[in-house]
């Protein structure tokens, strides 16, 4: 079990070493500061990397090169962007509510960074091991809605207000499927602690890990979770709150310079955080998928999975157009909500179909898998049929004026 060895625990040991060499009264403080500083540096660095990867990836998807001027292959583009946003003038509208306008980006970034406290990024690498970690994540994450409202309202601009209203409506609607799809995992794991949930998945039967995504309800739950996560983080195709073509930039239209960069940062950090939670809940956190791969350090697994999910986000962004508001709401309440409830039901059935009910290992496991898959798939087909009924999509033909 204790595979990986020194490389796996290198950061943990480093942390212990530093804390061990500080005077005793300062030890708590130093250990807290180290955790916070590491989280900020690592994820802000990841943000910088992601911005350039996203632009290059989107470019390739659209058969372009993407940024390739600053440094070799454009890898120093984030530096140029940082310099630009730091040196730009910080414009605050005269009629804006100055205090709230100033506080909104700070609250947003602060709240988003708080959510990282409970993410296990590696074995023994969790800033705070809370008994109710998942609950903490969602509770603190609720603060982002408020920060977005503050930004939209204080700017005293109708576009930003519209953007904030859209953002809040969307986030409230999609928070429900997000939490409900996590409930299936919490139910099965029997704990709210992120660390314990990962440890439950880091066990192996023969070679395969017990990741929840390998179960039918886990797979469906993971997909639903990621869809809801996309909406929660306001990313395309759910980027209505920003909607460049209609409300220009939504709630941060009146922000410029460094405050704008903070919003940008917060948006990406939110995406990483919620992806990290998805990894923790469904993809086994820092664990390896096969027992013979456990020699790779746990933190490499976590960040590898995170980068994969980020790539998926970019891919989806390059593929799908933006939804309309009514489509967004219909999708949340008429598809996501029932499907997450069905996933919970399926997880319950999975829990009770033990070997005692369905029979011994090879055949019993297959039966269990199929039954649970059917419980999800049949309602999915019915629901999809119902939603699509009477909605024939025809090829549009355009007639030009003569």
């Amino acid at each position, binding site marked *: 079990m204790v595979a990986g060895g020194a490389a796996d625990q290198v950061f943990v040991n480093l942390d212990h070493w530093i804390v061990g060499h500080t005077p005793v009264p300062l030890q708590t403080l130093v250990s807290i500061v180290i955790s916070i500083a590491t989280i900020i540096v690592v994820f802000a660095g990841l943000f910088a990397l992601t911005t350039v990867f996203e632009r290059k990836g989107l470019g390739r998807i659209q058969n372009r090169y993407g940024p390739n001027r600053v440094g070799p292959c454009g890898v120093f583009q984030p530096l140029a962007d940082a310099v630009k946003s730091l040196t730009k003038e910080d414009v605050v509208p005269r009629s804006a509510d100055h205090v709230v306008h100033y506080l909104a980006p700070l609250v947003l970034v602060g709240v988003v960074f708080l959510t990282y406290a409970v993410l296990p990024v590696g074995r023994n690498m969790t800033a705070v091991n809370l*008994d109710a970690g998942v*609950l903490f994540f969602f509770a603190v994450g609720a603060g982002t809605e408020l920060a977005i409202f503050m930004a939209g*309202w204080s700017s005293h601009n109708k576009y930003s207000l519209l953007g904030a209203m859209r953002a809040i409506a969307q986030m409230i609607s999609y928070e429900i499927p997000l939490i409900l799809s996590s409930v299936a995992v919490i139910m099965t794991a029997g704990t709210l602690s992120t660390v314990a949930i990962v440890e439950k998945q880091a066990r192996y039967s023969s070679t395969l890990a017990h990741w929840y995504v390998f179960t039918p309800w886990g797979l469906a739950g993971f997909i639903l979770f990621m869809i809801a996560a996309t909406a929660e983080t306001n990313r395309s195709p759910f980027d209505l709150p920003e909607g460049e073509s209609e409300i220009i930039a939504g709630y941060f239209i009146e922000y410029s310079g460094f405050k704008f960069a903070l919003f940008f940062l917060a948006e990406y950090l939110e995406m990483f955080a919620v992806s990290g939670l998805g990894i923790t809940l469904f993809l086994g956190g820092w664990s390896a998928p096969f027992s013979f791969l456990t020699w790779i350090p746990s933190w490499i697994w976590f960040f590898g999975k995170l980068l994969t999910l980020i790539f998926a986000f970019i891919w989806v962004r390059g593929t799908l157009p933006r939804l309309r508001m009514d489509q967004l709401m219909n999708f949340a309440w008429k598809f996501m909500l029932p499907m997450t409830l069905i996933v919970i039901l399926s997880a319950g059935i999975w829990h009770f179909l033990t070997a005692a009910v369905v029979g011994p290992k090879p055949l019993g496991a297959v039966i269990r898998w199929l039954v649970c898959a059917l419980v999800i798939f049949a309602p999915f087909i019915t629901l999809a049929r119902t*939603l699509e009924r*009477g909605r024939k999509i025809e090829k549009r033909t355009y007639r030009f004026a003569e």
Partner: protein
Amino acid sequence: MTLAFLILAVLTVAGGVAAMTLRRLVHCALALTVAFAGLAALYLNLGAEFAGLAQLLVYVGAIAILIVFAILLTHGGESDPEKVFSPAGIAGGVIALAVFAVLGWAVTTSSVAHGWGAGAAAQTSAPQTSVREIGLTLMQRYVLPLEVIALMLTAAMIGAVILAWREKRSVDPGAPSAPPSPELRV
């Protein structure tokens, strides 16, 4: 009384006071949120992890947003800079006093308070309730009340949906076979 408690208490009370005295309604709502968050932090400080996080999730995540949304939708954000004390304030004060009296009575007569009065012993014997225990208690001992509440909430939700629905229908009762509005189509 530790330093953390003092800071949080001051923050919570300041938030509450600001919520009452600030002029703009949105500022009041935001100050109220600070009070909610301070309260949640107090719970966490006392070791009531679940209660604190639930407070945060429900009050900051839902109630505050609801208040803010209501203010926005009713265009109340800019109104009444003059009237801070209204006649309704007196009734509010009476209700607040009554609630405070009941809470105070509950606290002073509870076993914890007596233990506190006796000495510092009660602090060490404060129950360590984990999320698991709360869940087990809810699902075993209090499962019936829980289900009743769930049923009631569902009924309320359905009622709200029907209310909203009726209103839309009754906009044009005389109109002969109006085309179904796009919102009603699935």
